[in-house]
């Protein structure tokens, strides 16, 4: 088997020179250039993930030590002219879990390692002078025998070429600081001393870091130790002096375990500061380069919550404090496993369980927030405040005040932000005004029905129209540069008007006013307009979540009539933005029109508008919840490339999110959704300007660059529980669907050049996903709480490519705490029915057959039956109208079902295959009418069961070939790759299996004419995917090569060997 591609947690990182990123993912070392392109993929270990990378301390980083578990390998690195070469030394077994390693000062051959039993080992790499091969030959020496306590963390720091200072954190909250003095020629260490042994935390110490020698004026400490723990605290200790007298501490018998008291021996260094910030465990702590103002040092901590917290250590006199500056969450899901800091450049890299690498150019730098001076009260007395405002240019804001004044301000970097008066207070805007903005124009409506227009070019406010009563809403839309439409609504009116502004003097008189009859109780919250030679659309969104589409009247007048209203287009929440997109006519295809929208139901949607014979049909192609919200407030598509930005709020933050890249662009802490605000995106700068009101004051923040870059993004942050691949022949092509413990379903496309690309994330399940299956362009998913969803997947959606909408949720979703463990789906072939037949296996031992009718989206129970008391795990339908279920008792059970009548479902017979739970099943029907069931069990076994349907219904006709010790742990994935005749009446079946032991095995089974089976193992490889939950056959679209896709903690794709003769 040949390894094709993987997407697994990043467990080691190093920043090499200025241009290279080294990353350990499973057993592979990846070398990326600074632009994120992969330059090398090097297999370092056979069956061990990489957990650390140490670089030699010379300027060129000419050597590295890679380690994982108890194994290590040296790597020599040669960087020349933007190219990088690397060659590995032999594997060294240190015999204990390696926690940290470091090269001796200015050495590229001597490395110290600390293991989980607090032992120091050294490796020296010598290059044989006369050897033909340049492979360095390492020699390993155990320097200081370990004590028996288990460490979770260690940091080794060379103070001189013969002195290692080590900090170790134990499982029980203790920290030990000790020294080892080495003599290079000697076989054994001469001396080691414990400086401190102290109870540092209330939980396991997951990270320790010694600082370099500090020379900070006014700061009394020359060296500090930072630690982080299960107890959610980061603590800073003063280890300036290293007492020598406590060499025996730690080895004397004492009370052990949690809460144990260490004698009051003054062995503890002074705790300078401690602080909490992460919501769960903290895995690592580091020192950041760069600091400013009154900070003494910057500390970084990295947590299970997948976030980085930047701390300022501030020291004044004898008082130190640790203050949180900033928290950044670049990764999805949980667990930052790997960290690298580039000291001179200030660059930070993190790697997480989601398989992504985040690069932060200046992690400590928050967005600058500036206050905008309050409006000057022009009537000299009393105060005034900003009422409403919006952008009339990339950095120009138009605002009204409570007193009816109109001002603008330019948000330029450093100058104090003061408003410039546009108009003295207007009576009509006093105490009430609303605004709408588009490009350089602003429109302001007042309580008396007056509408004023502002053009940044002239910086003048002119009266545009009078609509007779209090203006309730203004919505400007500029579908073309020569056309601007302003929709105005008035309070309690049943009509809205569109002012067409394309005349010679558009801001003094609209060229046309069109009245729109509003649907009943339709409060307009958004508006979009489209027009070409043959077509006009006006689309309105309402506070109640409805979307109304208007088309020209059939009578040929200029009137627009409401053609269709989609109620609950965004459930019952406000439709906050609408955009119409035309997909240009192509040969053979008419132009298509799409409506993009966002709503306060937390979703982003794409619908197609189909216009024929004056009727409009609206088809929802895409509607998914975004990872922030529920108040999604705006939407903008980049004109040239495929970027779709949405923005809105998430608890106290304003968030900008790219739907295409599925990543956060910008985040500002503003206090939450309920306030006046305005946002102007800036695609070129990867940011924009955000202005908001908080406690009566106006603030401004600008982002001019992404806070972090991402490599390999898009993975689940938790373990995948289910996987399904759509048929390459489906309209949407081969799409990989994965459902994970984080309750998300993700759709991926695999491309040889770009790897796994996440297309969409489906967020609707409230519990872990149990099973996924494709049926044409339908994806079906099941989970706990009886959750079952039918997703319709569409191709050809502008920008997105693939669109996904939840067509139906099973009516019992959320009704109980039963889990739907597995299901199978086929066409409902009963008379007069069109739709799907879905058979579900439940955790309470019941099996139910449902009919789903896709037009009306109705669900009907066809039949139901009980198995015994075991949890069913799988169900599949055979072509001879039977169901086969698998259960946690290890039995395969045959059920009879007849399509034509409703009846209770009965099982006919059961056949014992495994000792305990059957985790996985694959099915193949042979030409002779028999079928094969391949099962993987919790009992480590793989069973191949041949089923010969008997005449009698009681006869299982099942015979099993069992491989009891197929894997060293539970077998959680099996699949059938191929079947082919192998001489005479023999057939050869190629199987693949995967298990919790992280092995993928390929088996060849020969079935002869009488059904006797012979099996042999033809491949056995390690997969970096832990907790394997599924295995799917992969048939590549590009080259048709078949392979297997393994899912669990990550995904792993292997090419299959061709079946042996």
């Amino acid at each position, binding site marked *: 088997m040949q390894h094709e591609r993987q997407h697994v947690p990043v467990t080691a990182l190093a920043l090499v020179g200025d241009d290279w990123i080294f990353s350990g993912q499973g057993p592979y070392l990846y070398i990326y250039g600074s632009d994120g392109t992969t330059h090398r993929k090097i297999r370092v270990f056979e069956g061990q993930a990489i957990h650390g990378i140490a670089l030699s301390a010379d300027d060129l980083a000419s050597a590295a030590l890679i380690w994982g578990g108890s194994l290590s390998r040296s790597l020599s690195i040669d960087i020349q002219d933007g190219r990088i070469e690397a060659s590995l030394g032999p594997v060294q077994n240190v015999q204990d879990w390696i926690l940290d390693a470091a090269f001796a000062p200015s050495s590229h051959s001597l490395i110290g390692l600390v293991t989980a039993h607090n032992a120091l080992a050294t490796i020296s790499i010598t290059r044989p002078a006369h050897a033909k091969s340049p492979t360095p030959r390492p020699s390993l020496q155990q320097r200081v025998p370990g*004590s028996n306590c288990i460490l979770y963390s260690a940091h080794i720091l060379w103070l001189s070429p013969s002195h290692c200072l080590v900090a170790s954190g134990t499982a029980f909250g203790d920290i030990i600081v000790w020294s080892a003095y080495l003599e290079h020629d000697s076989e054994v260490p001469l001396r080691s001393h414990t400086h401190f042994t102290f109870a540092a935390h209330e939980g396991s110490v997951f990270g320790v870091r010694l600082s370099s020698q500090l020379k900070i004026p006014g700061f009394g400490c020359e060296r500090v130790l930072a630690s982080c723990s299960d107890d959610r605290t980061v603590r800073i200790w003063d280890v300036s002096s290293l007492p020598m007298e406590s060499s025996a501490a730690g080895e004397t018998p004492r009370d052990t375990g949690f809460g144990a008291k260490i004698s009051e021996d003054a062995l503890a260094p002074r705790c300078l500061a401690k602080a909490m910030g992460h919501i769960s465990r903290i895995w690592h702590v580091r020192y950041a380069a760069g600091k400013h103002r009154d900070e003494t040092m910057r500390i970084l901590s990295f947590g299970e919550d997948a976030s980085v917290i930047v701390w300022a250590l501030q020291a004044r006199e004898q008082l130190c404090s640790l203050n949180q500056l900033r928290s950044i969450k670049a990764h999805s899901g949980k667990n930052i496993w790997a960290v690298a800091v580039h000291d001179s450049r200030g660059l930070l890299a993190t790697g997480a369980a989601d398989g992504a690498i985040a690069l932060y150019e200046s992690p400590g730098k928050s967005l600058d927030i500036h206050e905008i001076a309050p409006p000057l009260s022009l009537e000299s007395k009393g105060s005034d405040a900003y009422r409403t405002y919006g952008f009339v240019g990339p950095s120009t804001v138009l605002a009204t005040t409570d007193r009816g004044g109109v001002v603008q301000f330019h948000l330029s970097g450093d100058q104090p932000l003061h408003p410039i008066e546009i108009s003295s207070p207007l009576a009509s805007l006093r105490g009430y005004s609303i605004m709408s903005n588009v490009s350089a124009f602003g429109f302001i409506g007042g309580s008396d029905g007056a509408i004023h227009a502002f053009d940044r070019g002239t910086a003048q406010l002119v009266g545009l129209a009078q609509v007779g009563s209090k203006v309730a809403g203004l919505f400007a839309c500029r579908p073309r540069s020569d056309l601007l439409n302003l929709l105005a609504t008035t309070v309690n009116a049943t009509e809205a008007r569109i002012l067409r502004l394309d005349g010679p003097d558009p801001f003094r008189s609209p060229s046309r006013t069109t009245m729109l009859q509003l649907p009943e109780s339709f409060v307009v919250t958004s508006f979009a307009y489209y027009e070409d030679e043959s077509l006009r659309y006006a689309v309105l969104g309402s506070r109640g979540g409805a979307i109304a589409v208007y088309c020209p009247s059939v009578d040929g007048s200029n009137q627009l009539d409401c053609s269709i209203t989609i109620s609950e287009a965004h459930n019952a929440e406000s439709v906050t933005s609408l955009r119409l997109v035309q997909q240009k006519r192509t040969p053979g295809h008419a132009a298509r029109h799409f409506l993009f929208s966002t709503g306060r139901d937390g979703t982003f949607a794409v619908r197609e508008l189909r216009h024929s014979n004056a009727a409009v049909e609206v088809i929802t192609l895409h509607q998914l919840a975004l990872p922030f919200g529920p108040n999604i407030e705006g939407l903008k598509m980049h004109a040239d490339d495929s970027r779709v930005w949405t923005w809105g709020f998430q608890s106290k933050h304003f968030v900008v999110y790219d739907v295409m890249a599925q990543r956060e662009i910008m985040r500002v802490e503003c206090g939450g959704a309920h306030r006046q605000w305005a946002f102007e995106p800036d695609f070129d700068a990867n940011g924009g300007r955000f202005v908001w009101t908080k406690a009566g004051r106006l603030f401004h923040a600008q982002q001019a660059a992404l806070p972090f870059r991402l490599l390999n993004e898009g993975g689940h942050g938790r373990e995948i529980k289910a996987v399904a691949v759509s048929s390459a022949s489906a309209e949407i092509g081969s799409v990989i669907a994965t459902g994970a413990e984080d309750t998300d379903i993700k759709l991926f496309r695999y491309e040889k050049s770009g790897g796994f690309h996440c297309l969409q994330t489906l967020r609707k399940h409230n519990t872990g996903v149990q099973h996924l299956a494709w049926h044409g362009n339908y994806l079906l998913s099941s989970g706990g709480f009886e959750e079952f969803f039918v997703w319709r997947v569409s191709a050809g959606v502008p920008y997105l490519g693939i669109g996904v909408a939840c067509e139906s949720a099973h009516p019992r979703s959320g009704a109980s705490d039963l889990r739907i463990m597995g299901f199978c789906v086929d066409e409902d072939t009963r008379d007069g029915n069109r739709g799907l037949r879905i058979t579900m296996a439940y955790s309470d031992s019941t099996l139910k057959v449902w009919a789903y009718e896709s037009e009306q989206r109705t669900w009907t129970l066809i039949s139901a039956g009980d198995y015994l008391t075991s949890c069913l795990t799988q169900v599949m339908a055979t072509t001879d109208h039977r169901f086969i279920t698998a259960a946690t008792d290890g039995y395969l059970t045959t059920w009879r079902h007849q399509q034509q009548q409703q009846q209770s479902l009965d099982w006919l017979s059961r056949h014992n295959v495994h000792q305990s739970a059957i985790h996985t099943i694959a099915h193949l029907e042979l030409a002779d009418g028999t079928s094969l069931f391949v099962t993987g069990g919790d009992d480590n076994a793989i069973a191949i069961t041949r089923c010969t349907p008997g005449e009698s219904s009681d006869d299982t006709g099942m*015979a099993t070939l069992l491989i009891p010790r197929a*894997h060293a742990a539970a077998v959680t994935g099996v699949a059938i790759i191929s079947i082919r005749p192998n001489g005479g009446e023999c057939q050869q079946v190629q199987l693949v299996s995967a298990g919790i032991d992280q092995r993928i095995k390929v088996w060849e089974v020969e079935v002869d004419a009488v059904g006797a089976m012979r099996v042999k193992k033809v491949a056995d490889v390690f997969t970096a995917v832990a907790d394997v939950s599924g295995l799917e056959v992969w048939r590549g679209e590009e080259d048709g090569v078949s392979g297997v896709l393994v899912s669990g903690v990550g995904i792993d794709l292997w090419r299959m060997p061709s079946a042996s003769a």
Partner: protein
Amino acid sequence: MGKSSKDKRDAYYRLAKEQGWRARSAFKLLQLDEEFNLFEGVTRVVDLCAAPGSWSQVLSRVLIKGERIGRASWEDKRYREILRSRAAGRQDLLPGIENEAENAPPPTNAPREGVKIVAIDLQPMSPLEGITCLKADITHPSTIPLLLHALDPEYTGSSTTSLEASHPVDLVLSDGAPDVTGLHDLDIYIQSQLLWAALNLALCVLKPGGRFVAKIFRGKDVDLLYAQLKVVFERVTVAKPRSSRASSVEAFIVCVGFRPPPGFKASLDHPLGAGRKLDGAGGETLSSAVETTYKLRDDGTVEVEFGEDGRAVEGGDVRWVAPFLACGDLSAFDADASHKLPEGHISLDPVQPPTAPPYRRALEERKKLGGAYGKTKLGEVK
């Protein structure tokens, strides 16, 4: 999850509360005993990683009080009812349905003589009658003399080389598991270290022929552990009781027939696990068969063995896959299934509240601050 829904999700959680067990894991030991007769002839036991003490409770009730706790206490009555109703008139379905639990002799009280049980855990444990409880870290070297002293009050510990019990024990149990981090390799390593620590203690106190039962994570490289255990025990089986969820990596290694390698001395300075390994010199080498064999079982299933035991891997270690045995009759409640609660079911409080986590103080602080940790003011205004 509410108490009641947890009762439905997990039958053993409910049964444990109803039958007064401190944790559902009591059933795991009981089902292991049903299969392996672990307590036969046993009077001296060490229970490692014992808190909250459900295994010690089992020892107390079985060995000290002489109770017999049979299958009836974890049997799902519906299982046989359904099978019986289906089997009406069908002979082929009857085998396996007869109710052993009903035919079993009534429980008798037969307290054993000279029972000595020592329980050790990191966390404090509520006392149990007749059981010596120690609060100690089993991975720490100072725990060995502590344990020897608890087993034999005469033990003085004057000589550090004398690390063997003068009156060895019959059975060493360990149900310990670390708080998992989610980094699978590390969790497997830490679990293996707990197992090594338990085995280290067992080597000091177990009598030849004694038994050792410990929790194991069946994950990557578990076959390396199996191979090591096989060196010092005659029979090594990996067992999964019905009360342990199929969805969990947990299983139990049941080692029978302790055979210390000749000249083997348990050592404080060189404990197992930290680089020290058992070599196969004392015991028989792992299976040397190299041919594929097919065996027809009575039930018609053909079993295949490839004879590849004892192969060495990267790093030079030897692997061996211990045979798997599911224990507990199929009539036992299924730990993975959702259950209907019995009529009139009242959800009980757990017998013992869970122990305080190390982040308890963090939670308290958080509460004090009204939900979020130290509400930070980002980016002060200039």
